[in-house]
């Protein structure tokens, strides 16, 4: 069983987000970067599935600054790692790099987080699957493997769906697929010496270009309503905000 887990290096969920004065670039100074929380769920599941004698490879598209996060993934239990040495330009660029790697190094399963905490697109897992011509189950809450078929529960509008997919496939992990694993001392020590290969990206023309950032407008001051006067709350919201 060969499992590939795609990981992103993202700002810590508690980080305050700031941009350069021209709003063109994200300011990373003073921001802690972490393994994307959903990717961590995917990785935890992969480590569980491989416990009976499989191999888990983590792959990241990024420059050398992502290596501490890759080592964290190795500490959690991945066997080896690949870094494709290029900044992640857009989701098509990232998905193409990973799909090209998989064409040369076939796997039984590709697990990703359902979305990344920076761009939140949920696009990379789907694009990898499309580029490889295989199924993708996004928003997967559970994954059960039997021989060459996987059964997954996934979120849909107003409910859930149970699907069967043949191997190989891509899944986007949601909460519930696995318990988060906390690296132990042995994992942390062994992560330092596990193989991390750095490979060059393939050439690909991107179709999108980042333009700029902006921050949401701050809300006007909160209007306090006495707990004894909530009877008119909905009329108040209707009259003042016209949203209901």
């Amino acid at each position: 069983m060969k499992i590939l887990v795609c990981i992103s290096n993202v700002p810590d969920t508690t980080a305050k987000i700031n941009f350069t004065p021209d709003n063109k670039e994200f300011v990373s100074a003073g921001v802690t970067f972490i393994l994307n929380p959903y990717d961590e769920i995917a990785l935890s599941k992969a480590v569980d599935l491989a416990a009976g004698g499989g191999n888990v490879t983590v792959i990241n598209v990024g420059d050398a600054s992502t290596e501490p996060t890759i080592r964290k993934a190795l500490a959690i239990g991945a066997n080896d790692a690949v870094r494709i040495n290029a900044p992640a330009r857009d989701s098509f660029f990232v998905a193409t790099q990973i799909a090209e790697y998989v064409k040369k190094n076939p796997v039984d399963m590709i697990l990703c987080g359902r979305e990344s905490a920076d761009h939140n697109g949920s696009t990379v897992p789907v694009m990898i699957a499309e580029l490889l011509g295989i199924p993708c189950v996004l928003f997967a809450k559970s994954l059960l493997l039997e021989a060459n078929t996987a059964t997954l529960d996934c979120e849909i509008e107003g409910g859930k769906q149970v699907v069967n997919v043949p191997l190989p496939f891509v899944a986007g992990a949601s909460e519930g697929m696995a318990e988060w694993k906390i690296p132990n001392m042995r994992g942390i020590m062994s992560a330092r010496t596990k193989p991390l290969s750095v490979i060059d990206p393939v050439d690909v023309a991107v179709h999108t270009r980042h333009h700029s950032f902006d921050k949401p407008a701050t809300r006007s001051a909160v209007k306090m309503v006495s707990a004894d006067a909530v009877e008119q709350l909905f009329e108040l919201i209707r009259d003042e905000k016209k949203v209901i």
Partner: protein
Amino acid sequence: MSVLVYAENLQGKFKKSAFEIVSFGAAIAHEKNLPLTVLSIGQVAEEELLRLATYGAVKIMKVEGEAFHALSDQTVATAIAQAAAADAAQYVAMTASFSGKAIAPRVAIKLKAGLADNVIDLPKMSDGFVVKKNAYSGKAYAYCEVLSDVKVISMLPNSYKLVEDQKQAAIVPFSPVLGAADTSVTIRETIRSADKVSLPEAELVVSAGRGMKGPENWGMIEELADVLGAATACSKPVSDAGWRPHSEHVGQTGIAISPNLYIAVGISGAIQHLAGVSSSKVIVVINKDPEAPFFKAADYGIVGDAFEVVPRLINAAKNFKAGQN
């Protein structure tokens, strides 16, 4: 050439989000002086299909047949891409619903098009094509330029208003050709709670946190949601503790929502929670701690015990609803 919108139906009925994306497509069609085609997949009655013309569709492509009863992402993506090619669509738009998010990237690759995913506003089209999206889990907006000739766009629900623009529309049957790869996923079971409002599309959301003290106290939250016709949601500690399902968790690592009204009961307002709900148009916070950080991000605040305030709100909601009818 055309603007092609995929209008998703749920058991033969179009939801509000379908009319939102049709209105959005109509605005692009108007700007670019192109006709608007709307694609429907699955069994939908003619009368329901014609509702799409209310929002500006001049052509309605319908895909029906047994292969399209249980819709897998790959089947739908193939149908959309083939319809877009047949219609020479320059712009292909759909809702970024759970299924839309799994479909749009496939369509973009099939059409060798750039993807503008999860957009929240009409693109700027005067110079190039620049879309606005949420970034950093709701803490910022990103603007992204799509460079390709053909552009695929997915838009989050509740991001664009309904604009009526009645047209005479022709219904044209379309038959996509499916390959083996399009049908490799077998849908074993679909479970939908018919009476439950889908969280990402909900206009009103009632959410609660640890202040509720335990899962046994959720009855009043559900009742308030029920009276308002709202979806229920919860904070991360609540879903982590197993009080409520993960699918209700809103916040940075849960679902990001942008309802018209978000009512938060007993949620202190950690930065990760705020990230997922800050796009809500109006936020009401109920907390017994006057220092709760969530009050700073709210439009209306009520300091009080949830167990006293929520029953009063249920009465207030009942009276409000009665006054509307």
